[in-house]
């Protein structure tokens, strides 16, 4: 297991470098001259030339790429935002935890509510509990989260006046974003849980467990759900990206100062360094979370652990 973790952590390095190269290359095709954007339209030609030299825009692509990587990962100098002049490192430090927490809360809601719902649907197959939760799930995966967010604002802030429509503060500010962001997740988790539970529930070992007199509750929780969990975790991995993307949009709706609203407003202001560095940090966050999902996977599925043990043994013998 330790070998697996180390190997996966090392693999993050080339992936993050790859993402950095990808984002840097994409952003170097951005329209407009950075010097012009920074200095505004009143700048003289000399000022523009001086700024270009300062930014290193005259250098060839590979040198610029090299110094960019050097600045971000070795010197940790990320520079300032073009539009606000604020330190990019400081705003990422301030905003990243908020986006991360919000996404994690959404993921916990998604699977904390979705899995029990799916188990209930599977154990009551073709009864009303099944139909009701599957209809809910179908609607849940079809509603775009940003539209749901606006509907929630109409209902809870404007009509009822229970919750604040935007901003940050106490827990009441995060109820609607979390609800809007996790509905899709709850629905897909419920659907996935139902179908993988139905797959395992007919297996012979379930019948064996029942005939041994194991209580039904324990059969479902320990024998069936544990085996059904593997495809659910796979889904959690792919769902993480969706949730993170959804959070970015929801942050702009609820005026939450997180990474999403930072990057989106930077794109609209053509504040390219913020977009560039913000995107790279989001990718790092995302990769770390995916790593977490993979480790969870290895923890639940003994076959993955066994695979590693097996390979090790094979090497020793060979």
């Amino acid at each position, binding site marked *: 297991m330790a070998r697996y973790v180390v190997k996966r952590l090392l693999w993050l390095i*080339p*992936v*993050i470098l*790859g*993402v950095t190269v*990808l*984002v840097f290359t*994409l*952003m170097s*095709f*951005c*329209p407009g001259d950075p010097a012009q954007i920074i200095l505004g339209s009143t700048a003289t030609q000399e000022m523009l030339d001086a700024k270009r030299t300062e930014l290193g825009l005259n250098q060839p692509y590979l040198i610029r790429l090299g110094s960019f990587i050097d600045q971000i990962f070795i010197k940790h100098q990320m520079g300032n935002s073009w539009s606000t002049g604020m330190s990019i490192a400081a705003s990422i430090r301030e905003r990243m935890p908020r986006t991360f927490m919000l996404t994690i809360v959404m993921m916990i809601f998604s699977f904390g509510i979705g899995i029990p719902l799916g188990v209930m649907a599977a154990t009551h*197959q073709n009864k009303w509990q099944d139909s009701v939760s599957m209809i809910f799930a*179908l*609607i849940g*995966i*079809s*509603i*775009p989260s*940003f*539209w749901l967010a*606006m*509907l929630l*604002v*109409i209902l809870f802030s*404007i009509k009822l006046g229970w919750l604040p429509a935007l901003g940050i503060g106490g827990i009441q500010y995060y109820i609607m974003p979390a609800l809007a962001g996790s509905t899709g997740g709850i629905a897909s988790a419920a659907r996935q849980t139902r*179908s993988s539970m*139905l797959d395992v529930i007919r297996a012979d070992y379930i019948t064996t467990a029942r005939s041994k007199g194991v209580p039904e509750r324990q059969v479902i929780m320990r024998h069936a759900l544990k085996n059904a969990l593997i495809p659910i975790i796979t889904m959690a991995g792919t769902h*993480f*990206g*969706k949730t*993170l*993307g*959804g959070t*970015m*949009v929801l942050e*702009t*709706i609820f005026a939450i100062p997180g990474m999403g609203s930072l*990057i*989106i407003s930077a*794109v*609209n202001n053509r504040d*390219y360094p913020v*977009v560039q560095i913000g*995107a790279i940090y*989001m*990718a790092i966050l*995302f*990769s770390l979370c*995916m790593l977490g999902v993979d480790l969870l996977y290895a923890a639940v599925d003994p076959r993955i652990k066994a695979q590693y043990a097996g390979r090790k043994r094979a090497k020793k013998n060979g």
Partner: protein
Amino acid sequence: MAVPEIRNKHRNNSEMHRVMRQLKKNKLAMIGLVIFAIEIIVAILSPYIIPYKYNAMDMTSVQKGPSLVHLFGTDELGRDIFSRVLYGGQYSLTMGVLATFISTTVGMLIGAVSGYFGGKVDNIMMRILDVIQSLPNMLLSIVISAVLGSGFVNTIIALSVNGLPAAARMLRAQIMKERENEYIEAAVSINCSRSRIILNHLIPNSFSPNIVQATMGVASMISIAASLSFIGLGVQPPIPEWGAMLSAARQFIRQSPHMVIFPGLAIAVTVLALNLLGDGLRDALDPKLKN
């Protein structure tokens, strides 16, 4: 006379027909198909059937709620929201379908080449996909739209990158299974070219999971397209794309919630229809999964 009979029999038993028969039995899937078909027809005919021009302003009835004159009410410039939603379907549906088509086709080609050749080619391609996949979809689309700028075609390009790695991986896995079959060996032995083996033999025999994925893909593409327009990157107003309409309606959410409700409802209904169809297709293509 025996020949047509054999042909007929063969056709009735073909995989395609079995799938269609299965699909026809599935009521929910048929509802989804019908809704989506109606939406496409309405979108194509919309310039001729909408009651008002999509950009016709009427300052005497601004932000009116739904009524018989304006089914979905009017927006801040007195434009008829019903007409705009129908007309905007052209943009939303085209973007969803085209972006999925591009991403599925390109992804399948990458997956097929990768799966057929294996080894170094496969390794390099998969590592590149790993890098692309370590950016969340929405973020990648945002970065690409930032580079290309907003607009209809640019948005389609920004969206297409989304489903690409998933489509490639899915076909690659299928091809790796399929290429072990004897008919591929036979094709190699009669000196079929590699491109012929990949395009004529391998892809047609392994792309059914990609079809299910693409159907669901259109749904999520429509959703992502709308959210891109919503944050001001995709298609820009005055084009009545659903996400762009929602984006403009946002500032009037307090006074006229109907401006927010109807365009979003259009997205939700479309996505729901496609998900129903996708579920049905998956069940029909993979009888194992049916409970």
